[in-house]
C-alpha cells in the first residue's frame, strides 16, 4: 500500500512537471532536432551509397 501511494505521488508529480511550460518547449525542440538529425543522416547515407541526396 505504501509503495502504491509513493507511486501515485511520483506519477502526479511527473504529470505536473511534464505540463510545465519549460518542459513542453524543451521536449518539442528536442523532438524537432532529432527528426532533423535523422533526415541529415538519411541524406548522408544515401549520398555515400551513390544515390540521390547530393546537394550540388
Amino acid at each position, binding site marked *: 500500500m505504501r509503495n502504491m501511494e509513493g507511486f501515485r505521488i511520483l506519477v502526479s508529480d*511527473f504529470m505536473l*512537471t511534464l505540463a510545465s511550460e*519549460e518542459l513542453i518547449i*524543451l521536449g518539442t525542440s*528536442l523532438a524537432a*532536432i*532529432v527528426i*532533423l*538529425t535523422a533526415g*541529415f*543522416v*538519411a541524406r*548522408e*547515407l544515401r*549520398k*555515400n*551509397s551513390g544515390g540521390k541526396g547530393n546537394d550540388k
Partner: protein
Amino acid sequence: MKTGFKKNLGAGWLYFYIHFITEVACFFILSRNVGDSVMLWLFPLIYDALAFVPQSIIGYISDKFPKINFGVIGALLLGAGVVFSSVPILPGKFTGLVILCLGNACTHISGAEVILRCSEGNLSHSAIFVGGGSFGVICGKLLGSTALPYPIVAAAVLTAIPFALLAETYRAKTEEKPCVGFDYHSKKINPAVVVLLAVTVVAVRGYMGYGIPTAWNKTVIQTVMLYVTMGIGKMAGGVAADIFGVKKTAIFSAVAALPFLLAGDQLMAVSLVGVMLFSMTMSITLALLVSVLKSTPGLAFGLTTIGLFCGTAPIFFFKFDSVRSNCIIITALTVLCIAALMIIIRKDEKHGRLQDTRI
C-alpha cells in the same frame, strides 16, 4: 602493433584540455544550482538535453561550413554562460544555462571535427579527447562546493581559446577531406542498421553508467577515484583499440567489465576495474559511426550524444532501487551491447589495423 597512431596526437591533448575546462565550467554551475530542491533534477535534465542533443545539428553545420571556428565560439559562450549564471541580468531563469549548454556543444563539436579528421583512423586521439571530460566533471563538482568566485571560472574557460586556435592548425592540414582510415563497420550490414545499433549501444551504456551499483562510493576521495578511473578507461580504450584491434577491445572490455561491476557493489577496487573496462568502449562506438558517415564527423559525433541523452533521460524519471534488479538489468543490457557490437564491427586484422579491401 598498429604503427603511426602517435601522429597528430598533439591535437588530442589540446582538446583534452579544452574538454576538461568545458566540463569544469558546466559542472561548477550545475553543482552551484542543484542545491535548490526544485532544481534538483530539472536543472541537470535541461543541461543534459541542451548540451547533448543539439550537437548533431551544430556538428552538421560545422561539417558544411568548416571555416567557422566552433572551438572559439564555444569558449566564448561558456564564459558568457558562467557570467550570466552568476549575474541574472538576462530574462528567464534558464538563460544562463542555455548559453552554457550551447558553449559546451560547440567545444565538443569542434573537438570532434579536429580530432576525427586528423587522426587517420586511429582511436587514441578521440579517446584522449573524450577522456578529458571525466576529469573536468569531478573537478567542476568539487570547485562548485567551494567559495570560488564565478569570474575566475569564466577566465579559466577563456584560456581554452589559444588551445582551440592551435588545434585548428591540425584541421587545416587535412584540407576537409573525409575521415580517412575509419573502416571499422561490417560491410555486410546496411549502414543505416550500423547507425541504429551503434546509437542503441551508446544509449544502453548511458543508462548502465547511472545504474552501476556503487554502494562503496561515500566519500569525496572515492568519487574522485571513480571519475578518474572513468577518464583513464576511456583513454585506455582508444589506445587498446589501436594496438589490439577494435573488435577485440570492444568485446573483451564489455564481457570482462560485467563480473567486476556486479561484484563490486561494496568493494571499491573490484568496482573500479569494472568501471575502467566499461568505459573503454566509448571511442569505439564513435569510430563506428564515423566509419559510415566519413564526410560528416560532426554529425556522427552528434549522434553519439543523442544516444547518450536517450540513455540518461529515463534516469530522471525511473530508476531501480533494488541492487538485484539492477544487476539483472545490467547483465541483460551488456548481452544486448555485445550482440550489437559483434554484428556491426568488422573482423580485426592480425596487427589490429584493418585493411580497406577486407570484408
